[in-house]
């Protein structure tokens, strides 16, 4: 047994008729929560019924422990719970049969792993059917195939029973579908036959077929699943495996969350430790840190823009997503260049058995997804999506609005995913994806755009593409190498009146992680993470506001123009992670990361440590401590806009928590955290001399910050009709600016963040889910007075102390109803997502009159119904 072996309590679903021994399954319930796929039985061997038990008319059940290897073969079968009564041969027969079972292997993050499962094998006496025994087969006159209704997935190992009652005789025959779901009967007598198909997890299928002499009946039967809810097959890794905190959301769970409209990243706001961003934004605010402190990765590679228009919609459709890992702090050393948290989107693990796809239409956009096998070892998926808001708005905006919608607003994204696994040890993936957003307005009266507008154009465009090539090499169960090579381009341009910027980044990234299971007590992971950037920038902007500062004044007399071409930046990093298991139940994860930041010419050393101790079977304590660095924003180190002598910002994460499973399926996770930040970039009034006389420093690294709080998560695992979780975070996030003596609230301080999510599955593929959120209002800086600026013909506000006021709280209830209609060869799913059900328009910001003498709370959206339809073909 090596380190990949996991204990899985699984009663595998085995579809068998009542006349056969039954291996019955409970719903998947995992202790090893990190499985991305449970083992699926592909070959069932019926155990011979013990003669004495059959004679006595006794039935029994045996619970076996099966060890299934990475190929899905049963390596060992032992009895966990023997049959009652004992001594009749049930145990031996079950073990002998089970050793011949075959499975699709279990997977962790898409890679096959060996697991142990508990398997319940039930011996049930078959009622003796009247009638003669069928003669030896000679003529195949009834053949068919069993497929799952809606998905057309073949159903192997299912028993098909035929009955015929006539005035003279009664006959019954049975056959079992093979690995392709096909079955056949031979030499059936002409006449009408009742076909009865029963499979665990499917509705019983009964029909009649007429066999005519000299003709063969060929039929395809579509068996309907009892439920098409993705939660049925969901294996969630809700509990962190090693890290102090890691939350994994599977795509199936993401799709059904109310209020997110199936957006893979919008669901992050439901998680503990994640604050609520401003309306219209999906910024990820992790434990009081700024959004730019949290890195969003796709398959380990940094992506510059996670959302269309900064928060409208994720650039990756859910169809391309396998799962999402969220680390709110104390993440391992293989992640770097971030002082807040990590969000990693894992792209889909392709395993199509046939070509299929989905068409997804919502009020915002329409998308298509297609995946297909290519030969035996390769798969391909393609997806694309385009918004049609521009078309709608062009019709909706009247001519009198004074605006021409030249391109407003439009986004599209595209993805191509190809996988190739020529051998179990080699897995190749290619993921190419990108997005393009464009907004272009033309104000007929440019003065309405800005008092300093030089034209009426307001244009913004963002776009990027990435190519990620992944190669996983797993030469043995103790060794694995994961290589990621990525390249791409980011572009963002903005132009309105006198303000503009045009940024082009050409980027390449290489990540390599080699994992070696040294022995039972030690795993080692070594890796490198190199980021390359070539930047072309042209800007005409004022100096930008920092965290804690009100928006910058856009007086054109303060605009600065800069052009920087061919700026090269290398950021290489190396890391080492160790997993030490000194005694049973204790896991220590020391690690270290070294990064070099060329822009600031700084080398940083980040030691990190996480500890987990399973005190009892259902109770684990955990703690973490680590140092994290990230570079200042590009403008902050620019010689014109900022201070080129800045160094990286630093954070130290401390956390202490416990996980408790009081009941099967119920998990409680409590984590207290404390984050100390220093070297924060802060505005400075000091001067420096770089050899050309005194010049303003503008920024320094004298800012410090601290965040303290706790996350509490109560999660009901997805094994019953009622599922959900409650996440609550209490925190206080403060900063102290350069030269200040007192701390102030940070922009992202949100004292209370409560999210409750409930999902209830109803019969007939109906599903209802709800989400309630309560979040403390955001801090803001009051306006104490104004000065009329004669140059700009505007009032400039005079601000009071930073973040000394707070908006009222946000609270909202969202409700989502899903319904699936299952047809023979396709499924249609529709949803209605009602956001803000009780129409509470929470305060989002404070808006002011032009002279700041009047103000009021800017309210959020009223009740908002979103509707979408998806066809799965």
């Amino acid at each position, binding site marked *: 047994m090596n380190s990949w072996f996991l204990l899985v309590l699984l009663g595998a679903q085995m579809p068998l008729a009542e006349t056969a021994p039954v291996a019955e399954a409970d719903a998947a319930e995992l202790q090893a929560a990190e499985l991305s796929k449970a083992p699926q039985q592909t070959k069932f061997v019926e155990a011979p019924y013990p003669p004495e038990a059959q004679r006595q008319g006794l039935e029994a059940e045996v619970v076996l422990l099966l060890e299934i290897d990475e190929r899905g073969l049963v390596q060992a079968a032992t009895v966990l719970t023997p049959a009652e009564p004992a001594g009749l041969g049930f145990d031996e027969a079950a073990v002998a049969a089970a050793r011949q079972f075959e499975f699709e292997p279990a997977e962790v993050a898409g890679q096959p792993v060996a697991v142990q499962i508990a398997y319940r094998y039930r011996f049930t006496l078959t009622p003796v059917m009247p009638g003669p025994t069928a003669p030896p087969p000679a003529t195949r006159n009834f053949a068919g195939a069993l497929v799952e209704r809606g998905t057309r997935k073949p159903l192997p190992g299912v028993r098909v029973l035929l009955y015929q009652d006539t005035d003279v005789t009664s006959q019954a025959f049975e056959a079992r579908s093979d690995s392709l779901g096909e079955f056949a009967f031979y030499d059936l007598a002409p006449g009408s036959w009742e076909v009865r198909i029963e499979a665990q997890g499917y509705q019983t299928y009964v029909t009649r077929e007429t066999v005519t002499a000299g003709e063969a009946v060929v039929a395809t039967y579509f068996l309907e699943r009892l439920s098409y809810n993705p939660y049925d097959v969901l294996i969630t890794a809700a509990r962190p495996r090693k890290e102090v905190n890691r939350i994994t959301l599977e795509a199936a769970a993401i799709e059904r969350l109310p209020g997110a409209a199936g957006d893979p990243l919008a669901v992050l706001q439901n998680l503990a430790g994640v604050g609520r961003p401003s309306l*219209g*934004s999906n*910024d990820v605010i992790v434990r009081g840190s700024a*959004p*730019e402190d949290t890195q969003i990765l796709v398959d380990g590679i940094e992506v*510059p*823009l996670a959302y269309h*228009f*900064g928060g409208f919609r994720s650039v990756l459709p859910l169809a391309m997503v396998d799962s999402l890992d969220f680390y709110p702090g104390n993440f391992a050393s293989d992640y770097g260049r971030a002082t807040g948290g990590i969000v990693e989107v894992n792209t889909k693990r392709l395993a199509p058995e046939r070509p299929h796809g989905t068409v997804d239409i919502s009020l915002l956009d329409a998308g298509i997804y297609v995946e297909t096998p290519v030969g035996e070892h390769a798969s391909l998926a393609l997806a694309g999506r385009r918004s049609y808001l521009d078309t709608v708005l062009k019709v909706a905006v009247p001519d009198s609005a004074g605006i021409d919608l030249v391109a407003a607003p439009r986004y599209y994204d595209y993805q191509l995913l190809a996988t190739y696994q020529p051998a179990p040890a080699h897995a190749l993936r290619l993921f190419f994806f990108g997005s393009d957003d464009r*907004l272009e307005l033309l104000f007929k*009266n*440019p*003065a*309405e*755009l*800005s*008092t*300093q507008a*030089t*034209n*009426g154009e*307001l244009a*913004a465009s*963002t776009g990027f593409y990435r190519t990620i090539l992944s190669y996983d090499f797993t030469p043995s169960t103790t060794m694995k190498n994961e290589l990621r090579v990525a390249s791409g381009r*980011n572009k*963002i341009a*903005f132009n309105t009146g006198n*303000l503009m*910027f045009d*940024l082009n*980044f050409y980027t390449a990234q290489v990540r390599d992680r080699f994992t070696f299971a040294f022995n039972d007590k030690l795993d080692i992971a070594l890796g490198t993470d190199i980021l390359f*950037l070539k930047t072309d920038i042209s800007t005409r*902007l004022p100096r*930008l506001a920092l965290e804690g*500062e*009100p*928006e910058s*004044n*856009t007086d054109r*007399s*303060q605009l600065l123009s800069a052009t920087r071409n061919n700026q090269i930046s290398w950021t290489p990093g190396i890391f080492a992670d160790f997993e030490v298991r000194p005694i049973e139940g204790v896991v220590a994860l020391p690690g270290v990361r070294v990064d070099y930041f060329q822009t600031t010419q700084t080398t940083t050393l980040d030691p990190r440590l996480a500890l987990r101790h399973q005190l009892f079977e259902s109770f684990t304590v955990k703690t973490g401590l680590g140092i994290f660095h990230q570079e200042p*924003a*590009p*403008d902050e180190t620019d010689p014109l806009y900022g201070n080129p002598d800045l160094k990286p910002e630093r954070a130290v994460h401390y956390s202490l928590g416990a996980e408790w499973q009081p009941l099967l399926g119920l998990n409680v996770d409590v984590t207290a955290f404390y984050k100390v930040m220093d070297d924060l970039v802060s505005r400075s*009034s000091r001067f420096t001399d770089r050899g050309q006389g005194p010049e*303003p420093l503008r920024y320094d690294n004298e800012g410090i910050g601290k965040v303290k709080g706790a996350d509490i998560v109560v999660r009901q695992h997805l094994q019953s009709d009622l599922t959900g979780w409650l996440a609550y975070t209490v925190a206080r996030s403060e900063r102290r600016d350069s030269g200040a003596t007192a701390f102030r609230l940070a922009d992202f301080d949100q004292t209370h963040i409560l999210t409750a999510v409930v999902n209830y599955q109803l019969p007939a593929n109906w599903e209802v889910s709800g989400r309630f959120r309560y979040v403390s209002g955001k801090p803001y800086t009051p306006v104490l*007075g*104004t*000065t*009329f*600026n*004669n*140059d700009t*013909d505007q009032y*400039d*506000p005079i*601000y009071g102390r930073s973040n000394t006021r707070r908006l009222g709280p946000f609270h909202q209830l969202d409700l989502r109803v899903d319904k699936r209609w299952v047809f023979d060869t396709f499924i249609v799913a529709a949803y209605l997502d009602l956001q803000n059900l009780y129409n509470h328009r929470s305060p989002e910001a404070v*808006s002011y*009159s*032009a002279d700041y003498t009047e103000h009021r709370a800017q309210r959020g959206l009223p009740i908002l119904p979103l509707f979408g339809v998806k066809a799965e073909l």
Partner: protein
Amino acid sequence: MMNRYLAITLGITLVLASCAGDFTPYNEVKSLRILALQAEPPNPRPGQTSVLRALVVSPDNQPITYEWSWCPAVGSANAGYPCLLDEQTLRGELNAVLVGAGDAVPTYDLGTATEALLAHAISPLVLKTACPRLIEESAGMLTEDCTQSFSVYLRLTVHTANETVTAIDKLAWQYRDDATPNQNPMVTSLGQVTRTGYDAFAKDGTTLLQRNQRVTVHADIPETAAQPYTMASGQAAREQLLFTWFVDAGDTEAVRTTFIDGEVTWEVATQNDWNLPTTDDAPNAAARLWLVVRDNRGGVAWHAAQVTLQEAP
């Protein structure tokens, strides 16, 4: 990395997209306001003295007191443009460059008359030389570049019995005598566009306009008000003009209009629609209209007109 810039994009776009809601429009004069400041000349050459004027309106015609001052280095807008360099320090720094140069510094307090004077009396060479040191001395000031001209800031605070407002204006003291002078624009008259053409409003306020009607108002301004000039890059350009239409009764279709050569025509820029109020909205028979014109080089001018409102027949 791009998120910061994306945030700017979104922030600006949202600000632009946000509507004024139920707030009083910027151009409706309902309280004590400084509508404009003017320096004549706007960018004085060495030795010139600027005359400082203000367009101040008190809707209820209360007595107004004026406080004029100037400062060569002010702090951020967010802090209310505080003066960061006192007179003594300024004189000391200038004297350090050239003995006696500090004596030419005008007092910061420019008086309490409705108009004030500010002389560009300090040697440009001294200013240019002292500038980096002045910037350092007044840490946090806005202007960091004083290679082209020396910026000074005018401040006017006006009071009535119960209201106080403050305005700030920037004046660029030229270093060179031969610098192309900017001139304040000029507004000849304000009037309405009728079927027959343009009728200027009577200077005595006797022009009758019907309540609850929309009137197309026009500013009679010579097109030469948009002067040609040479930008810092050496490129030839024509001034951009911004017209702000203030009213104390009714509202206007546009708060501001603008002339941008090649983008917006002169005719469009100099016209606006004035929606005249009902008696319920504005019981006074007199309604006032002020047009303030700003060019993009610091030039300012204004013109006021008054009309008499009458009920529709």
